[in-house]
């Protein structure tokens, strides 16, 4: 990115974050929604299986993926509400900058939610764990959020220009995120299992990194066509 691009990127990101910081709408809604789902899982599945430790990773990441749909759905909402959605199509900002700013903002929202939800879920389902394990899970969060952010920014840009935006998005996003949920859940379970499975953990993290790189390339190759008039 050239200096001008970097300046635009920072300006866009700062605008998104400042809007979010002022209202806190998105992160709060995502967090509450995720907590409700965690509680749902606890009462429908957790109560019945008794020992939830082996399935904690799957539950955590299914929850976070569902919560992410809310955040991704908000991606272009400020522009839409101020009726400048079509104006961004002719804005003299490169598509790369626009999408990178969106992706970064999404990753930050997701991390903001996970800081609260993941420790709580670990307490609920595994009865706590060590600080090292939490750090390892934080690593999974960063990688998985990158995957969700890239895929989310890509698909949200298509759904926002469609007729039935909020209906299309989950149907588009969740199937594409299934590999992320599977592997992030697997990595989390590998950390939380009584004897920490580092080889497995590394394998899953590598997968997440590959996913992020591949779809970053796909996004790079296609978003000029999405944001095109």
């Amino acid at each position, binding site marked *: 990115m050239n200096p001008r691009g970097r300046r635009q990127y920072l300006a866009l990101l700062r605008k998104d974050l400042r809007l979010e910081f002022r209202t806190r709408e998105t992160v709060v809604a995502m967090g509450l929604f995720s907590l409700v789902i965690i509680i749902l899982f606890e009462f429908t599945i957790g109560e019945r299986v008794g020992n939830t430790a082996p399935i904690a990773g799957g539950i955590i990441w299914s929850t976070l993926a569902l919560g992410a749909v809310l955040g991704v759905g908000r991606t272009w909402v400020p522009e839409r509400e101020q009726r400048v959605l079509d104006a961004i199509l002719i804005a003299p900002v490169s598509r790369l900058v626009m999408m990178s700013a969106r992706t970064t903002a999404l990753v930050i929202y997701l991390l903001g939610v996970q800081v609260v939800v993941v420790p709580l879920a670990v307490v609920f389902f595994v009865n706590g764990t060590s600080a090292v394990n939490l750090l390892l899970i934080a690593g999974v969060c960063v990688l998985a959020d990158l995957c969700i952010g890239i895929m989310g920014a890509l698909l949200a840009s298509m759904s926002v220009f469609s007729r039935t935006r909020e209906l299309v998005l989950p149907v588009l996003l969740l199937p594409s995120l*299934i590999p992320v949920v599977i592997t992030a859940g697997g990595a989390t379970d590998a950390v939380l299992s009584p004897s920490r499975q580092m080889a497995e953990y590394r394998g899953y993290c590598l997968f997440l990194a590959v996913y992020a790189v591949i779809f970053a390339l796909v996004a790079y190759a296609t978003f000029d066509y999405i944001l095109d008039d």
Partner: protein
Amino acid sequence: MTDPAARRVLVLGVLTAVLTATGIIGLFLVAPEDSGEGQIQRIFYFHVSIALVSLLAFGVAFVAGAMYLRSQREWWDDVVFISVRLGLVLAVLTVITGSIWAKAAWGTWWIWSDPRLATYTLVILLYSAYFVLRSSAEGSRQARFSAVYAIIAFVSVPISFYAVRVAQSVVHPVVFTSSGAAMPHSMLIWFVVALAAMTALFFLLLQVELMQHRAQRALREVKLRLERG
């Protein structure tokens, strides 16, 4: 017959008929009974062919999507749309016949530990979203978004397969392999014939539907001109 499309339909039709007939006769009457699975193994020939051709269809959609984005020619959009629809039908067929096979071989209709059955279920979800997006996008965006999504979905297919496989190799150490890698030549030859038959059928149906789209577009043009005066 001067229309090349009509000639292609004729050639492909004859080819499909001959290959299908040869394949069916061969696999039921000539191919030897499998020593391990017995009669059940005869599902294999068309089941696997259909599965592979459905991937071929999605691959065609991927290439046509890229070609559409480059050239903006409506014809490529038709190819994407028809290929995805055909691929989806074939994927559904794969899952149904796979489920019948699971019942016959392992006694249950559904077996999540078979990575192919699980992956094809994900693939059906992925590509169903294509139609949701397509019906929701409007104007020039419809074809563009469809093409982009066909590209994203095709990239997702191997990633989903790998994610499912990795997750299962951890949970279920035994992976079912129903296709004998060491298939005797007396069986392999009929599999190749079945595969060729399904490939020919795919291109036949694609060709027929492309002609329908052509007729549709010509009619729309006539209508426009009539309305204009």
